């Protein structure tokens, strides 16, 4: 009998006691020092902190790309189907848009690729190569690829940087619309507090390097009430609560 994979209903936890980088001159640099994260089902979590504090390093550890740290990852996280939208779109330039999405799927499924491209508004672009896309379009393809795999956990590493504010805003709306269709655990790294307030259920603040969790804030704004003014007000309040860690 074939079992449908359903989304796990329990929390996933990660504990990073210590993570060091070894510099070119052999010096050890403590990047993460006692950091605990909890990803709850159907919850959109943002990780925010000063630039260079180790946000991307944390994400790489959770994605299983970096095993050299002291601590413990939930075994379920290693087995879970994960997807990532990296800071750069990371599409294979020698494969077409459709092939890029198709390759990420465990089994070939062309209708699903078409549906995924349609869901990000790129129906006509399936046969283009990534070099023929704008940065905004390439980011849409990266989103389509991530959602097409129906992940249990979705990681995003500042996926909207170096876009103009209008394009970034449209992509944020798109991200939330895709996520609400099928809410999975999301962990997104950003340094933009307004972006975090607009998107997240929960915001985790990290300290300066070596990074620890400075505090966790629940975003108590209803999802349909996050107009720019409400977002700004909430962000300003958070910036007061966590001085120096985020700019409103």
């Amino acid at each position, binding site marked *: 009998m074939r079992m449908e994979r359903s989304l796990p209903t329990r929390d996933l936890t990660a504990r990073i006691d210590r993570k060091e980088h070894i510099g070119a001159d052999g010096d050890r640099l403590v990047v993460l020092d006692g950091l605990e994260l909890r990803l709850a089902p159907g919850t959109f979590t943002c990780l925010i902190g000063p630039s260079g504090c180790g946000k991307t390093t944390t994400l790489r550890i959770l994605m*299983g790309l970096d095993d050299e740290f002291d601590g413990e990852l939930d075994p379920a996280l290693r087995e879970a189907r994960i997807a990532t939208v990296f800071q750069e779109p*990371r599409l*294979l330039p020698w*494969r077409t848009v459709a092939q890029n999405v198709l*390759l990420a799927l465990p089994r070939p499924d062309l209708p699903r690729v078409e549906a995924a491209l349609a869901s990000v508004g790129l129906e006509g672009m399936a046969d283009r190569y990534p070099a023929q896309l704008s940065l905004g379009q390439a980011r849409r393809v990266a989103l389509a690829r991530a959602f097409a795999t129906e992940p249990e956990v979705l*990681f995003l590493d500042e996926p909207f940087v170096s876009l103009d504010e209008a394009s970034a805003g449209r992509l944020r709306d798109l991200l939330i619309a895709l996520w609400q269709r099928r809410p999975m655990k999301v962990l997104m790294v950003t340094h933009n507090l307004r972006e975090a307030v607009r998107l997240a259920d929960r915001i985790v603040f990290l300290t300066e390097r070596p990074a620890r969790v400075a505090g966790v804030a629940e975003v108590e704004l209803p999802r349909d009430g996050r107009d720019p003014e409400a977002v700004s007000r909430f962000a300003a309040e958070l910036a007061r609560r966590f001085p120096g860690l985020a700019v409103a």
Partner: protein
Amino acid sequence: MSRSRSATAARLLSVALFFLLWHVVSLYVSPRLFPSPWQVATFVLRETESGVLPYHLSITLLRVLAAFVLAMAVGSALGFLMGRSRGADVVLQPWLILTLNIPALVVIILSYIWIGMTETAAITAVALNKIPNVAVTIREGARAMDPTYMEMARVYRFSRVKIYRDVIAPQLQPYFAAAARSGIALVWKIVLVVELLGRSNGVGFQIHLYFQLFDVRAIMGYTLAFVAVMLAVEFLALQPLDRRAQRWRPKQV
């Protein structure tokens, strides 16, 4: 469009100039030492009609093909290993330097002595001469691979087939093409030496024969015929394949 057309015209003009020069020089030198293009062409035509030239040409081509495939396969595997594994690089490095510096002639003679005067010895000798160059080129390619694509592949749990076919091979393709280009040119030159030293057929054997008969016209005829075949391989196989593999790159403005 017009630029590529004028490039073709320039190329044809250059070839015509080559034959004109050849013709002019042949007017002032004894035809025994330096036959005219026309004399060489009649020789090639006659040998083609009799079937002698196509026979030797095809034998040589088969040897080139066999040695080329063998050298590319072994050289690419070694180069990839050395580019990806620090340990393999350290261990194989002295071997590489050694083989890069052994003269082709020594490899050929030792192959004939140790393996015997056989086809296997001939093809092994040619391949051994080419393997280190292929390995060095592919090693550079393997080192230059972008690790971010591999990370993406790991996150999305790409199968082994997908990793090699869709992530690694396209990144190595330009290096593979470069190794193939310089490889085919080197391999055919060494095949001729191998034939001269220990085979009783092929273009190299024929050139040796005509050298003893002091027939410059025949030597030039065989050489020209083979160069023409290699040019056809370049324009009809290598270049179209290259264009196909490069079609994802943004167009040059």
